[in-house]
C-alpha cells in the first residue's frame, strides 16, 4: 500500500486524490469491516483463499485414497470411510474448488482488466461468497463427523435415494449443491453485467481481453446449466425428506431422470471449469510472447462455440444405459465436434508462440504444461466418446485418468500459471522463479506418473471407486506407481505453498507492471488500491497498454465523496451514466445466514425450510431498503423519450 503522504494542499495532486478516494472506497476497520466488506478484491481474495483451502483438504483425501490403493487387499481404510473420501474429494474439487476458484479469479481481475472500480452488484457479490462458504463448511463438517456423503459425486439415484442411503449423508451433499449453485449463479450474473455495462470508454466488444471473453462465456453457461443441478438436487432432497416420488420407478418416477438432469448440467460443468483455463492461457501467452494472441476473433468464436456445443453432448456419460442406440451415436458425433473449436484455440496459441518472442518463465511453463497434458485429456476423451470403446472403458479407472488429465491439465495448470502471473498484482511482490520451476516440474512429472497408470489400469479392467482389489488381478504394480506419483504431486504442492509463503514475506518488490502486460490491470499500482483507477482510462486498441507507452487518456468527473462508477453502453462502451454503489453493509451476510438456516434446518425437519424462507424474505427486504440518504445528493434524471 503506498504510504499515506502528509495531506498536501494541492487538491488535484495524485497523492491527495488517492487519499480522498481511499477514504471513500476502503473497507471498515477490524472484524466488522471484514464482515461488511463489499469491495470486489477483498471478497475475491477471501474466496480464493477459501477455495485453495478446500483444494488442500480434498488433496489430502486423494492422498489417503492413493495410500489405500497402493497395495492389493490393503486395510488402511475401510469401505465406508473410503466411500466418504472419494465422494467428498470429487464433490469438493468440482463444487467447492474448481467453479468458485475460477469465478473468484474472474471477480478479482475482470473489473480491473476492463477499467472499472467495482463489480456491478457489490452486495450480491458478498452474499455469493458467504453462501459458498456455508456450503463448503457444511460438506466438510459432515465429513469430519462421519456424516460425509458416500454415494459418489454424481450420486446416482437408487443408491443415493431414501431406500439405500440411510441417515443424513446424501442430504448434506444435496444442500451443499444448492448452496454452491446459488453462489455460482450469483457470481455469473456479476461477471456478465459488469462486462456488459461497466467497461472503460472505448473498449468496444472487439477490444475486450480474451480472459474477460472466456469468463463471460463461462458465466452464460453457468446461468443455464447450474439451475438444472439445483433443481435435481432439490428433487433428490425432497425424495429423501418428504417422500416425493421423482425417482421411485414403482410409482412412475425413473432413475434415468436423475441421470439426464444431472448430466445435462454435468457436462457443461466441466467446460465451465475448463474455459476459464483457456482465458488464463490466452492472457499469459500474449504477455510472454510479447505479442497479442494470434486470431483474436477465431479464439473468441471458438470459446462461444465450445459454450454452445457443451450443452449438446451429455448423454456420452450414459452410453451403458438402456438408451436407444442411434441416439447414442448422435452424441458421439457431438462429442467429436467439440474438439474442433478446442483445437482452433490451441493452434492459435501455438501460432502466437511461433511468431512471438517467448520468454519461458514459470507462467509460460505452465502454459506449455497445459498444452501437453490437456491434449492427452482431450484425446482420451475422444476414446470415451466412441460408443463401442466407451462400453469397455467407462466406469473403469480410465475415467479418473481422463478426468484428471483434462481438469488438472485444463484448469489447475493454467490456474497455477495465472497464480505466478498475477501474484505480483495482488500482493505487490514477485514469486521466486527458481521455486516456481521446481514446483512446475514436480507437478508435471507427478501428474503423468499418477494418472497415466490409471489410464492403463482402466484398459486392464480395474473398475473405478473400488476401495481395494484382489491380489491375483495383477493391478498392484500400476496402482503403486500411481500412488508414488500422488506423492510427487503432494511434494509439488508443498513447494508451491512454500513459494507463496516466502514470496509474501520477502518477495522482490513487483511494481505496477513486472511482466509488461497488455491489459489495463498492469496500469495501476500493485497491490491495486481499493478504488482501482483514480480516473477511468480510455482504451484506443485491443492491446490497451501496448498502443502507446505515454500517459493514458482518462475520464474525470466521477464524484470523489461517493462510491460512483461510470456505466457505458454495451456495444461500443460510450459513457452513458453514473451509478452510486452501496456502502459496506452486513445485510448480505445476514441473508446468507438466513438461507443457511433454511437449508440446513430443512435437512433435520422440513419445517426448517419454511422458517428459512421467511427469514430470507425479511433479510431481502432489509437488502432492498434504501441506505440513509447522504447530504447534497443531486440527481440528474434522463426520462426515456
Amino acid at each position: 500500500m503506498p504510504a499515506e503522504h502528509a495531506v498536501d494542499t494541492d487538491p488535484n495532486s495524485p497523492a491527495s486524490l488517492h487519499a480522498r478516494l481511499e477514504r471513500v472506497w476502503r473497507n471498515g476497520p477490524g472484524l466488522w469491516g471484514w464482515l461488511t466488506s463489499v469491495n470486489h478484491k477483498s471478497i475475491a481474495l477471501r474466496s480464493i483463499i477459501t477455495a485453495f483451502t478446500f483444494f488442500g483438504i480434498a488433496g489430502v483425501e486423494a492422498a489417503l485414497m492413493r495410500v489405500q490403493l497402493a497395495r492389493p487387499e490393503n486395510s488402511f481404510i475401510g469401505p465406508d470411510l473410503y466411500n466418504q473420501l472419494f465422494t467428498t474429494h470429487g464433490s469438493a474439487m468440482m463444487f467447492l474448488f474448481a467453479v468458485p476458484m475460477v469465478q473468484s479469479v474472474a471477480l478479482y481481475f475482470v473489473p480491473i482488466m476492463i477499467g472499472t472500480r467495482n463489480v456491478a452488484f457489490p452486495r450480491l457479490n458478498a452474499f455469493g461468497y458467504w453462501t459458498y462458504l456455508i456450503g463448503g463448511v457444511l460438506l466438510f463438517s459432515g465429513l469430519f463427523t462421519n456424516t460425509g456423503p458416500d454415494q459418489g459425486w454424481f450420486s446416482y439415484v437408487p443408491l443415493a435415494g431414501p431406500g439405500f442411503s440411510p441417515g443424513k449423508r446424501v442430504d448434506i451433499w444435496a444442500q451443499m449443491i444448492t448452496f454452491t449453485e446459488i453462489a455460482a449463479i450469483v457470481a455469473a450474473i456479476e461477471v456478465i453485467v459488469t462486462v456488459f455495462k461497466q467497461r472503460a470508454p472505448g473498449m468496444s466488444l472487439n477490444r475486450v481481453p480474451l480472459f474477460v471473453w472466456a469468463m463471460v462465456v463461462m458465466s452464460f453457461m453457468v446461468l443455464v446449466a447450474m439451475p438444472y443441478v439445483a433443481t435435481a438436487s432439490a428433487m433428490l432432497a425432497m425424495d429423501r425428506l418428504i417422500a416425493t416420488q421423482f425417482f421411485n420407478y414403482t410409482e412412475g418416477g425413473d432413475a434415468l431422470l436423475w441421470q439426464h438432469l444431472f448430466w445435462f448440467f454435468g457436462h457443461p460443468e466441466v467446460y465451465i471449469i475448463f474455459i476459464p483455463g483457456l482465458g488464463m492461457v490466452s492472457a499469459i501467452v500474449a504477455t510472454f510472447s510479447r505479442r497479442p494472441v494470434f486470431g483474436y476473433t477465431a479464439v473468441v468464436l471458438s470459446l462461444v462455440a465450445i459454450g454452445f456445443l457443451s450443452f449438446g453432448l451429455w448423454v456420452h456419460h450414459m452410453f451403458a444405459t438402456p438408451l436407444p442406440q442411434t441416439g447414442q451415436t448422435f452424441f458421439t458425433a457431438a462429442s467429436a465436434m467439440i474438439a474442433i473449436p478446442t483445437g482452433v484455440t490451441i493452434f492459435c496459441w501455438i501460432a502466437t508462440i511461433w511468431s512471438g518472442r517467448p520468454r519461458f518463465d514459470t507462467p509460460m511453463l505452465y502454459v506449455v504444461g497445459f498444452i501437453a497434458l490437456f491434449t492427452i485429456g482431450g484425446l482420451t476423451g475422444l476414446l470415451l466418446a466412441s460408443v463401442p470403446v466407451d462400453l469397455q472403458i467407462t466406469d473403469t479407472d480410465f475415467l479418473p485418468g481422463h478426468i484428471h488429465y483434462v481438469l488438472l491439465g485444463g484448469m489447475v495448470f493454467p490456474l497455477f500459471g495465472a497464480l505466478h502471473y498475477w501474484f505480483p498484482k495482488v500482493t505487490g511482490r514477485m514469486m521466486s522463479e527458481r521455486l516456481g520451476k521446481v514446483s512446475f516440474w514436480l507437478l508435471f512429472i507427478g501428474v503423468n506418473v499418477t494418472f497415466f497408470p490409471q489410464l492403463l489400469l482402466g484398459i486392464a479392467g480395474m473398475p473405478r471407486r473400488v476401495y481395494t482389489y484382489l491380489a491375483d488381478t495383477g493391478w498392484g504394480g500400476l496402482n503403486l506407481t500411481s500412488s508414488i506419483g500422488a506423492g510427487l504431486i503432494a511434494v509439488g504442492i508443498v513447494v508451491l505453498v512454500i513459494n507463496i509463503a516466502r514470496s509474501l514475506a520477502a518477495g522482490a518488490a513487483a511494481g505496477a507492471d513486472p511482466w509488461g502486460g497488455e491489459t489495463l490491470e498492469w496500469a495501476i499500482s500493485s497491490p491495486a488500491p481499493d478504488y482501482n483507477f483514480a480516473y477511468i482510462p480510455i482504451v484506443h486498441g485491443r492491446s490497451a497498454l501496448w498502443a502507446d507507452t505515454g500517459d493514458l487518456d482518462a475520464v474525470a468527473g466521477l464524484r470523489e465523496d461517493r462510491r460512483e462508477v461510470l456505466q457505458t453502453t454495451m456495444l461500443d462502451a460510450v459513457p452513458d451514466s453514473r451509478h452510486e454503489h452501496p456502502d459496506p453493509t452486513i445485510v448480505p451476510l445476514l441473508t446468507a445466514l438466513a438461507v443457511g438456516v433454511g437449508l440446513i434446518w430443512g435437512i433435520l425437519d422440513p419445517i426448517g425450510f419454511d422458517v428459512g424462507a421467511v427469514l430470507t424474505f425479511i433479510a431481502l427486504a432489509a437488502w432492498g431498503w434504501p441506505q440513509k440518504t447522504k447530504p447534497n445528493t443531486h440527481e440528474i434524471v434522463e426520462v426515456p423519450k
Partner: protein
Amino acid sequence: MSAMSAGRYWGRIAAVAALALGLACKREERRFNATYPSAPAYASVTLDTLQPGVPSPELTVKSPAEGNAYDIAQGKLLFAQWNCTGCHSHGGGGMGPPLMDNEWIYGSSPENIVATIVEGRPNGMPSFRNRITANQLWQLAAYVRSMAGLEAKGPSPGRNDEMQYKVDEQRTPFRTPRASSSKTLPAKSQRP
C-alpha cells in the same frame, strides 16, 4: 492485509460448525463388525408392570441399534425380506397385530421386542430362536419401534423404492407408548 486475519476468523467459524455437528457421529456410524448383546434369557424379561408384591428388578439392555440410521435401515430391509409383512403388512397389521399403533401386548422396549421375536407369541408369532443372529435381532427391534414412532426422527428411514403403502417412518408422528397397554414404567419409557 486482512487476508491473514481473515483466515483466522474463517478458521474459527469452521471449528464451531464442526463441533456443533459432532453429535451426528453416533447416529451415522456404520457398525459392520460390532458385537451386539445376545438376546436376553426368557425368564429375565418382564412383560407387564402388574406384579404381586414387590415388583422384581427391571432388566434394561442398552440396544446399540437405538437411534442408529444404518441399523434401523437394515432392520427395515430384513423386515421386508423375511416376510414379516406377510402377517404384520408393513406395520398395519393383518393376521399379526398392527405394529404402528400404541398397543403393545408384550412391551415396546427393545429387549421386549427381541424377546417376542426369539420366544414367539401365542396365536401365530413363530419363534426365531437360533434363527436370527444377535445384531439382526436388535436391528429388527429398532425398526419395529421406528414404525410406531418410538425412535428419533433423524435416524428413522425415509420412503423405500416400492409402491407407497404408508407414511414413511421419518414422518411418522413421534409419541410415547401408553402406560396402560404395556409394562413400560414411566421412568424408562419417557426417553425416546
